[in-house]
C-alpha cells in the first residue's frame, strides 16, 4: 500500500511539473527551466517550514510566489529568444538555480537540532508532515487536490478566450500580434503561471520526500517535465496526466528491473512518439473518437464539408 501511495505522490508531483511546461508550450515556448522553478519552490517552502516553523500552506504559497516571481523576471529576456535558443537559455537558468542551492549552506538550531540546507549534503530535515501528524494518505490527498485544482483551471482556461489567445501565440506569434494580441503580456503571463505551478510542485515534492539535494534538480528532470505535454499532446491537459502515468507508472516503476536502462527507453519513446504522433497522444482525433464512442456528436471535419 505504501508503495502505491508513493507512486501516487510521484505521479501527482510530476503532473504539476508537466502542467507547468504545458502552459508554456501552449504559447510555443519550449522551456527546460521548469526544474529551476521547481527547485526554488522546494527550497523556499522547505526553508520556511523547517527554519521558520511556518504552516505548510503558507510555505507552499510563498514558495510558489517566489518561483513565479523568478519566472516573471525570466519571461522578459525569454521573449527575445525562440526555439533552440530558448531551450539553451532555460537550461542555463536551471543550472544556475541548481548550483546556487548546491552551494547554499544555511544551518540553524531549531529545538536543539541543526537544520537547514547544508550545501553538498542537501537539505535533509523537511519533516513537516510527520512532525504534524499527517499520514501518507493525507499527503497524497493534498498533492492531488493541487493537481485537480491546476488541471481544472487549465481546462477552464481552454474554454475561454484567454486560452485561445495563448494558443494563437503558440501557433504563430506574428499572426497573433496582427490580431491584436499583446505578445509580451501573454508570454510573460504564461511563464509566470508555469513558474507558480512548478513552484507548488516543488514544495509538495520537498515535503513529501523530506529531503532534497542538487541531484534532484538535474536536466533529466527538466527533460521529463517538457516531455509529458509533448508526449501527451498539448490539445488538452489530460494528455499530460496520461503521459505522466505512462512514464512514471509504467516505464519508471513497471520496468524497474531494467535499472538505468529505463532512461534509454524513455528517450526512445519520445523519439517514437514525435514521429508517430506529432500532435501528442491526445490529439484532436483522439478526442473526437472518444466523443463518438460516448455517443456524443462528433466534431465535423473536412470529410463531410
Amino acid at each position: 500500500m505504501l508503495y502505491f501511495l508513493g507512486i501516487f505522490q510521484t505521479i501527482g508531483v510530476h503532473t504539476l511539473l508537466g502542467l507547468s511546461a504545458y502552459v508554456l508550450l501552449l504559447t510555443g515556448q519550449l522551456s527546460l527551466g521548469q526544474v529551476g522553478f521547481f527547485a526554488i519552490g522546494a527550497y523556499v517552502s522547505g526553508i520556511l517550514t523547517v527554519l521558520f516553523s511556518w504552516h505548510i500552506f503558507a510555505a507552499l504559497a510563498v514558495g510558489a510566489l517566489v518561483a513565479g516571481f523568478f519566472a516573471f523576471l525570466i519571461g522578459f529576456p525569454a521573449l527575445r529568444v525562440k526555439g533552440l535558443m530558448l531551450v539553451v537559455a532555460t537550461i542555463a537558468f536551471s543550472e544556475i538555480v541548481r548550483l546556487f542551492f548546491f552551494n547554499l549552506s544555511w544551518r540553524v538550531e531549531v529545538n536543539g537540532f541543526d537544520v537547514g540546507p547544508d550545501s553538498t549534503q542537501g537539505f535533509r530535515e523537511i519533516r513537516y508532515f510527520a512532525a504534524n501528524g499527517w499520514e501518507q494518505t493525507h499527503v497524497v490527498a493534498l498533492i492531488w487536490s493541487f493537481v485537480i485544482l491546476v488541471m481544472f483551471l487549465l481546462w477552464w482556461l481552454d474554454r475561454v478566450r484567454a486560452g485561445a489567445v495563448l494558443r494563437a501565440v503558440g501557433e504563430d506569434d506574428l499572426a497573433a500580434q496582427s490580431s491584436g494580441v499583446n505578445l509580451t503580456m501573454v508570454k510573460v503571463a504564461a511563464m509566470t503561471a508555469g513558474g507558480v505551478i512548478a513552484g507548488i510542485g516543488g514544495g509538495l515534492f520537498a515535503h513529501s520526500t523530506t529531503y532534497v539535494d542538487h541531484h534532484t534538480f538535474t536536466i533529466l528532470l527538466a527533460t521529463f517535465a517538457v516531455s509529458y505535454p509533448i508526449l501527451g499532446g498539448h490539445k488538452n491537459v489530460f494528455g499530460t496526466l496520461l503521459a505522466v502515468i505512462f512514464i512514471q507508472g509504467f516505464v519508471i516503476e513497471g520496468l524497474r528491473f531494467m535499472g538505468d536502462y529505463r532512461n534509454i527507453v524513455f528517450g526512445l519513446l519520445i523519439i517514437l512518439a514525435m514521429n508517430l504522433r506529432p500532435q501528442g497522444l491526445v490529439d484532436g482525433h483522439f478526442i473526437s473518437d472518444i466523443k463518438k464512442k460516448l455517443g456524443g456528436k462528433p466534431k465535423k471535419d473536412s470529410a463531410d464539408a
Partner: protein
Amino acid sequence: MLSINNLETSYGLIKALKGVSLDAAEGEVTCILGPNGAGKTTLMFTLSGIIKPDAGSIDFFGTSLTGLAAPKVLREGLALVPENRLVFPLMSVRENLLAGAYTRNRSDKDEVEADIEKMFARFPVLKERQEQNAGTLSGGEQQMLALARALMSRPKMLLLDEPSVGLAPVIVNEVFAIIKQLKEDGLSIVLVEQNVVKALEVADHFYLLDQGRVTFAGTPGEMENDDVIKRAYLGGG
C-alpha cells in the same frame, strides 16, 4: 486618413526605414512598390505597432499611432494582413476568424457571429471549410482567410502585405477582385505589391520605396510615364 512623417525604423544597427513620409487617403487604395529588402514589410510592422519606430510620426484619422502597441493600433481601426498569409494552422477556419475579433468587446458576441456570416458570404470557400484546420487550406484559401481574419476586427483601413505573392494567376485575380470589392464598400487600403500590372487595376496612388526611402510618389498615370519605373516594373522601354 493615414499620414506618415519621416518614419525611421531599425533592426539593431541596420536602418531599414530612413525617413519615410507618405499619405493614404480615405476610401482609396494606396499602393507601395519596391524591390526585395526595400523596407515594405518593416513599414507595415511599424504602422501596426509590431516594431517601434526610432523617429517620425504616424497619424491616423487625427489620432497619433506613433509608438502604440499592436492591440491599440488595431483598436484604432488599422489592421494588418501580414505577408506569407499567416494563419493559425492548427485552429479551424472559424477559430481563425474569431481570433480576428480578439480586440472586440466580449459583449459583441452576436455581432461577431453576424460578421462571421458576412465573411462566409464574401468568401464562400471559407464557409465550406469552416471546421477544417487552417493549415490544410490551399495557399489562395489561406490568403482569403488571413484577409477575412483582419476584416473581423472591423478596420477603417487595411494594410495588405504582398497578398498575391506565390499564388497562381487565377487566384491572384480572385484576390484583386476582393480588393476591388472592399474598396467599393468604402474601405481604405494600403497595398504592398510587386505585381504592378495588377496593382494598376485598383490603386489610386503609388509610392516607390527603395532602400528605406520613398523614391517616387504619384498617380497611376504619372507612374506609367516614369521612365525608371517603366523599365524596372513594367518591362518596357
